Structure formats: C-alpha cells, structure tokens
C-alpha cells in the first residue's frame, strides 16, 4: 500500500515540506527569544503580519521583491527594538511588552496595507525568479525555503559563536553572571529581540509572497506555531548546541506542517480547525518531556524489580569536589 494514500497526497506532502521550510524562519526567530533569551515574546504575532504587510506594500509600489523583503526585515527589527525598549528601559514585564507591541502593530499593519487584505496577484515575488525557470509554486517555495533556512542557520551559527553571541546567550541563561563580567544585559536583550523579530518579519514577507496576499489577521496563532516547531524539533532531534538546535527547529517546523496537513487531509478536519489543531499539537509537545520522564520512571521501576540489588546512585550535586559526576 502506498503511504501517500493513507497519510496524505504527494502534493500535500511536498506542499507541507515547502511551507515548513518557509515557516522555519519564524521558528528560528521564536527560538532566539524563547530559548536563547528565555523571553516569551508575543511581538511575533504582530511582527509576522508586519513583514507580510511591508513586503506586499513595497512590491505593489514597484520595488524589487528582494528589496521589499529586506525592508520588511528592517521593520521587524524596529518592532523588536520597541519591545526591548519597553522591557529593559521602562521595566515593563516581557510578556506584557510583547502584547503591547503586538496590539499596536495591528493598527500599524492596517495603516501600511490600507485595508485588511492585500492581494499580490500577478506581481513579481521572490518566488517568481524560480517559477520563471519553469518550477511549480511548491517546488519554488521548497528551493527558496532551503536556501533561506540554510543561510539563516549559517548566519546565526556564526553570530552565536562570536563574543557578542556568547554575551547574548549568557544574558538569557544567567544575567547576573554576565553582568558581573561586564556585559550590558539590557543591550543584549534588545539585540536578541531585534534579531528575532527581523527573522519573524522575514518569514511573514516570504509567506505573503508564497500565499499571494498579506492579511492583517495572519499573525494570529503564529507564536503557537513557532513554539510547537521549536519544541517538536528539540524533543525529537536534540538541542546540545546552538547549531544543532537550529537544525532541529527547522526539522520541527517541517514535521509540524506534515502533522497539520495529515490531520486536515485525511482526518476530516477543516481549515478553520487549524488553530485548534495548532494548540493541541503544542500542548501535546509541551507535555512530552513530562510523559517521557514518567515513562522512564515506570521502565526504571520495572528494571529495578528485576535487579533490585543494584541501587542506582542519585547523587548529582553532592559529589565531592574532586570526584565529579559522570558526564550525562
């Protein structure tokens, strides 16, 4: 039996992979705030449609689509800067700072677009470069997605291996420590937020060009999609180093799309169920570590019964200075 007939059609399959690759840019942006900065940043839901709106607007006013896409990134950078300013300078809690900017961006996005939906019919986009070579939209999106994801991974990998990158990572991990080592953590938080939202706006710009329109409502639920990709990716593919995590996040994004596509196509869900599905997928993913632990405990208990004489050592932090604990 063909796997496609059971799970999804080939066209949905490849469509999901293309989408997963394009959306992985958003997921990597979310990874920067959520994982590296330890900052739950809801600006995402505003900076994603912001990227879409700006790219669409500039393309419609005759800009080169590549230029329009980069301009969209610049706007995202600014959105991140504002969230960072609210959080670090005005001391507004991170979650709230993000909500404030997200809400404000809704009006700004409408201003930019002039209406709630901006179609890009018959306009040149970053995808038309590929479709002009005779590719289908899906194929073009896949190539573009691969190129973008690889470039973003490489750039982030390079950045997070620099002195500055170390400082950003330490700011999210232990701000006390890195301040004591002379780093302005406010500045690093702002840099991280700017970088993250620039990527998220880039994702918005790409998705708008792939879908052929920008819509003011397209940001709703994006944070859930981003988080789900991050968590699926990390649980399944590991998170030992930054570059490994980034790779995992891209895989997570693709897998997320495949899950959603399968549910929509073969399990009787409707497109309007998408947001509910997203939430369920994320809830399941978030509970995975706990389930895994419970499962391990049950398995361990069974093993223990078998060989009860060997008591496993539980000491982790109270090993003596010299001894050290076995590397995990």
């Amino acid at each position, binding site marked *: 039996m063909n796997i496609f007939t059971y799970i999804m059609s080939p066209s949905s399959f490849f469509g999901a992979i293309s989408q997963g690759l394009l959306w992985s840019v958003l997921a990597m942006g979310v990874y920067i705030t959520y994982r590296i900065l330890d900052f739950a940043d809801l600006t995402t839901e505003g900076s994603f449609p912001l990227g879409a709106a700006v790219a669409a607007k500039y393309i419609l006013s005759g800009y080169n689509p590549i230029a329009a896409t980069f301009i969209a990134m610049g706007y995202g950078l600014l959105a991140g800067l504002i969230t960072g300013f609210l959080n670090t300078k005005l001391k507004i809690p991170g979650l709230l700072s993000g909500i404030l900017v997200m809400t404000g961006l809704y009006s700004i996005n409408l201003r930019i677009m002039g209406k709630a939906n901006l179609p890009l019919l018959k306009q040149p986009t970053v995808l038309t470069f590929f479709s002009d070579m005779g590719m289908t939209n899906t194929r073009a999106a896949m190539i573009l997605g691969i190129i973008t994801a690889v470039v973003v991974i490489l750039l982030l990998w390079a950045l997070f291996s620099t*002195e500055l990158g170390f400082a950003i990572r330490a700011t999210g*991990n232990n701000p006390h420590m890195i301040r004591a080592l002379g780093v302005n953590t406010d500045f690093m938080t702002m840099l991280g937020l700017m970088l993250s939202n620039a990527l998220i706006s880039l994702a918005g710009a790409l998705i708008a060009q792939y879908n052929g329109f920008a819509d003011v409502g397209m940001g709703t639920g994006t944070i859930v999609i981003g988080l789900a990709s991050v968590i699926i990716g990390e649980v399944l593919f590991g998170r030992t180093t930054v570059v490994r995590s980034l790779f995992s996040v891209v895989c997570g994004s693709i897998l997320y799309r495949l899950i959603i596509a399968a549910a929509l196509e073969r399990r009787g869900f409707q497109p309007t169920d998408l947001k509910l599905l997203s939430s369920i997928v994320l809830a399941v993913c978030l509970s995975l570590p706990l389930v895994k632990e419970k499962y391990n405990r049950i398995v361990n208990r069974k093993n223990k019964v078998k060989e009860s004489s060997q008591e496993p050592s539980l000491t982790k932090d109270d090993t*003596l200075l*010299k*001894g*050290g604990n076995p590397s995990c």
Partner: protein
Amino acid sequence: MLKIENITKTFSPGTANEKRALKGVSLHMKPKDFVTVIGGNGAGKSTLLNAIAGIFSVDSGKIIIDGNDVTKLPEHQRAQYIGRVFQDPRMGTATDMTIEENMSMALRRGKSRTLRKGITKKEKDMFREYLHMLDLGLENRMSAKAGLLSGGQRQALTLLMATMTKPKLLLLDEHTAALDPKTAKKVLELTKKIIEEEQLTALMITHNMKDALKHGNRLMMMHEGNILIDLQEEQKANLQVTDLLKMFEKASGASATNDRMLLV
C-alpha cells in the same frame, strides 16, 4: 585600592518595610589587603558588597576603586575592576554553556563584546592549563556544560573565572556557604592560594569566625548597617573566637547569641 566614604543605603524608603541596611559605612583598603567580614544575619554585609559591585546605587557617599570614582557607574561598567564569586554556586556560571565558553566570557570581563570569535584555539589551550592547576580533572571536560558540575566544582571554576583577568578587587560573598564542610575547606584553600599568588585585594564575607580569623590580614565585624569592629593583622593574630564574641558584646551592647549570629 578601595575607598568607601560614608555610604548609606535604605531599602523601600518611606514604607512600612523601610530598612536602613547601610548607615554610613567608610572603609579604606590598601592594595593586597585581604579583609574578612563577619556579622549576624541582616547586618548589611551583602548589601555592602552589592553596593561596591553596583547591583544598586547607594543613597549617599562615594565608592572609589583604584582612583576611579565608580559611585554612579552601572554594574556592568564596574565589572572591569571587580571579580565576584556568589554564595549560590548556580549564580557564577552560565549553566547551559560549556566550561570553556564560560571561561572565555570571563577572560573578556570589562571589555566590549565584538564580532570576533567567542573563543580561540589559543585560549582553549590556556584554559586547559588553568583548569589543570585546579586539579579537579576539569581540563578533560572543557566542552561539558557548566550545569553538569557539582557545587564545589562550580565555585572553584567561578573563582578561577573571577581572577583570570586580574581584578582590582575580588568580592566573595559567603562563597563556601552552600558547600559541604570538606568541599568548603578545599574551595577556601584555593581562594587563599589564588589571592596570595596573584596578590589580589579581596573582601570576603563568611559566617565562620574561625575562617575569618585564620585568613586575611584584616577582620571586620558588621552590625546593623555599621562596621562595628575593624582589626588589623597584628590585632587579630592571636585572637580566639571567644575573644571576638566578647569584643562584639562590648561594642554592640547586645548578646551575640541573641543577635541570631550564626557563629562557629
């Protein structure tokens, strides 16, 4: 090296929780002074160290490190002068980053962070040598995450990090308090060794009076936001814990045991 002039700090002023934690503290430390600080809970010891480190700004007074007035500088700008080890072993390292990454960040204490490589091959070799001197076997685990280390290992690493680029001033706030006695002793010995070898100027808070008498060339006792007793090397040379307790009772008019002093 360190000159503190009449600093005061009141937490939550004007509220029911108002707390005058420092009531005009002055302190002059010469280069290579190693001062131990004792005092009961809430005496203001940590507040004094945090004020020097710049975790908050003081209400009045001046803090001068090696001729530089740092009173108005934020914490991260004072870091160029100050090395710190905290009471909580988790505070001193970025636990999700590797040992060598942590060390490379410490090596750049007080310098601006650029787009240069976060860690170079040459630095790794240097770190391996430093870690070798600690004699904890950490030189073979340099790419392990700092979070995997035991409390004692972390404090030793943090101490190394704090002193790798020689600080004008080393601040130690009960950095052995969270460790078991045997490990605490080892870390304290290491502290002494590094301070002597590097000829550092250091300020160390401890709850252990014996340690305070044994180490350093000067001993201070704080009480209710003031420095109550300040003993120079010759004065503390033959002192016993009981003498210290008597001095405290005489100077404060309070009973040492009533004052919730955890004295050993």
